């Protein structure tokens, strides 16, 4: 696993529940992972897997009624000027208080999925980027902030940035807007960027450009990245390490190449098989069987049971499988790789 000196964000057993009047949704149900400095962690999952909620929980922006973090810790290791490290538990900070606010946008920033709705329609792009600077660096003059914003826009590949800075979001195309969003998230030089499906709303060709841009920027600025997507190919391209989430739990976790070479969890295998390939003989599409169960359902056993081709009735639906290291640095949550619970006192992880 990651070298403990490099770990920037350490999520431990995070649990987030949503209390709706139809029932309680266990959106995130015991998720743990680490993001290291300068590295990218990819998170793969379908809608409803809890990946976005996890990201929101890190920044403390989970919509708070009805959502609530009910368990776990989110630790941020901030290097200080004197080479020591300050450890902050983000989940204990006062909601929307000044501490968490000084982290948002400055130490950890976020890129959202829908660039159109993510910008205010009545303020210029420049205004919104400069705002990020001026909140966190109040001593910076307006002129300097503007210079920085122009430079940032140029760096993300927006031509004529000295003029475009005064445009409104609806004057930009989708790809440009996303670039502007990236500029806004990087303008304060954060240590980590959370990218929540940044290319899902874009055309494939633009998507490729944005991915290249992100990779370049990471090389240049050296920030860590948490890249969330449902698109395996994209995550494979961009991440150093990957976790696979399903219904609020981590199902598998490994370095990217290892995961692609040796997918262990039946869900991961099914995902791999469902990708249509261009080369090779023509074959039938094979989607992951079944549909997501209702979010209000409570699963005694493995949540993937209803769709798993390798399930063992009586075992997989009776107890929750624990997360085990099936191969070196490769974790899986599946009874296929665990001793059966009859040999243990209680299999719940």
């Amino acid at each position: 696993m990651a070298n403990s000196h490099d770990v920037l964000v350490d999520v431990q057993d995070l649990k987030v529940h949503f209390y709706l009047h139809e029932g309680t949704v266990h959106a995130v149900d015991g998720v743990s992972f680490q993001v290291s400095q300068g590295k990218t962690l990819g998170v793969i999952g379908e809608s409803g897997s809890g990946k976005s909620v996890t990201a929101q929980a890190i920044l403390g922006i989970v919509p708070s009624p009805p959502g609530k973090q009910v368990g776990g810790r989110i630790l941020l290791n901030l290097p200080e000027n004197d080479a020591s490290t300050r450890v902050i538990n983000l989940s204990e900070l006062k909601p929307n208080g000044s501490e968490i606010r000084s982290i948002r946008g400055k130490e950890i920033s976020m890129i959202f999925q829908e660039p159109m709705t993510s910008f205010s329609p009545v303020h210029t792009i420049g205004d919104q980027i400069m705002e990020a600077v001026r909140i966190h660096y109040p001593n910076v003059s307006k002129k300097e902030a503007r210079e920085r914003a122009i430079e940032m826009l140029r760096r993300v590949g927006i031509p004529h940035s000295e003029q475009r800075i005064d445009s409104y979001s609806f004057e930009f195309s989708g790809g440009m807007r996303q670039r502007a969003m990236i500029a806004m998230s990087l303008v304060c030089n954060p240590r980590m960027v959370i990218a929540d499906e940044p290319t899902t709303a874009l055309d494939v060709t633009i998507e490729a450009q944005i991915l290249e841009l992100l990779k370049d920027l990471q090389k240049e600025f050296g920030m860590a990245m948490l890249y969330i997507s449902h698109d395996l190919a994209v995550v494979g391209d961009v991440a150093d390490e990957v976790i696979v989430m399903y219904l609020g739990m981590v199902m598998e976790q490994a370095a990217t190449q290892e995961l692609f070479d040796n997918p262990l969890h039946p869900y991961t295998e099914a995902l791999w098989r469902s990708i249509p390939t261009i080369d090779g003989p023509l074959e039938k599409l094979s989607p992951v069987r079944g549909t997501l169960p209702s979010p209000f359902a409570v699963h005694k056993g493995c949540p993937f049971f209803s769709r798993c081709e390798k399930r063992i009735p009586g075992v997989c639906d009776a107890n929750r499988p624990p997360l085990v290291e099936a191969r070196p640095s490769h974790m899986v949550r599946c009874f296929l790789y665990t001793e059966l619970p009859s040999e243990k006192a209680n299999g719940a992880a």
Partner: protein
Amino acid sequence: MLVYIIRRLLMLIPILLLVSFIAFFIIELPPGDWVTTYVSQLRTSGIQLSDQEAERLTQLYGFDQPTYVRYYKWMQGIVTRGDFGWSFQWGKPVNDILAERLPITLTISLMALVFSWMVAIPIGIYSATHQYSLVDYFATFIGFIGLATPGFLLAMILAWGANQYLGFSALGLYSKDFLDAPWSTAKALDMLKHMILPLIIIGMASAGSTIRVLRGNLLDELKKQYVITARAKGLSEYQLLMKYPVRLALNPVFSTIGWLLPAIFAGEVLISIVLSLPSLGPLLLRATLSQDMYLVGSVVLILSALTIVGSLISDIYLAWADPRIRYGGVSK
């Protein structure tokens, strides 16, 4: 932006024209030819009116000719001479009467509008951000009272209350002492004291609906993605509230002047009747009871025209405040 303004100004003309048709229709409504009625009235009350003068009146107002000529003459009078016709109840040109009363109506109405915004906007914002709190319920309650209670009733009760408990006669715009006195600070203060009641009553009804609109819009805006983006950037809740969703939610509030103004004018007319204020209200009432139609029609025309101009101003403001409209981009 300029193009937008010019376009809107041009569209104003057919609208004002239509309003004048309706106003004229009102003038012509009562059966009978009022000149002959007027003349016979004058004659019965003993005033000698020669046939020549009667003829002149008939010609002046075009009663010897078809309706559209009469309309044309009336409009011509308004546009070229500022002459809105003749009030036979008062025996004066309508515009003399209007000049006395219109400024008061305007002052009270505009102040009521501003007052209602001053009350409604803070309450609306608080209500939306603190849903289901005591203030929220209280605001909803006030809103309902404002809209359910007939204004004139409220006026009556409050005036009686002021009289009973404060020894303050709320009727009229000036106390007896100041009625004929020349202008002074004391007189102005006295006038303001008398204006409080009408302002509150007229303003309350509009305040109620403004609160509801603002609250609804703000609740919608607060759910939008850009609010989350702003929060993720590190803005404090107060900052992000004021800068983003409030700005957007306020726009429809200012653009609803289009239907707030008529309501305020209507309220002003009604309340001023009950409280005997020297504005257009009591004037209109007497005119309708005595079928003094040029006065009635002119009042309707002027009030409507003011409303239309008011909504033009609010549309221009909206275009300035919301760049999407200016650029013809995605509008809400």
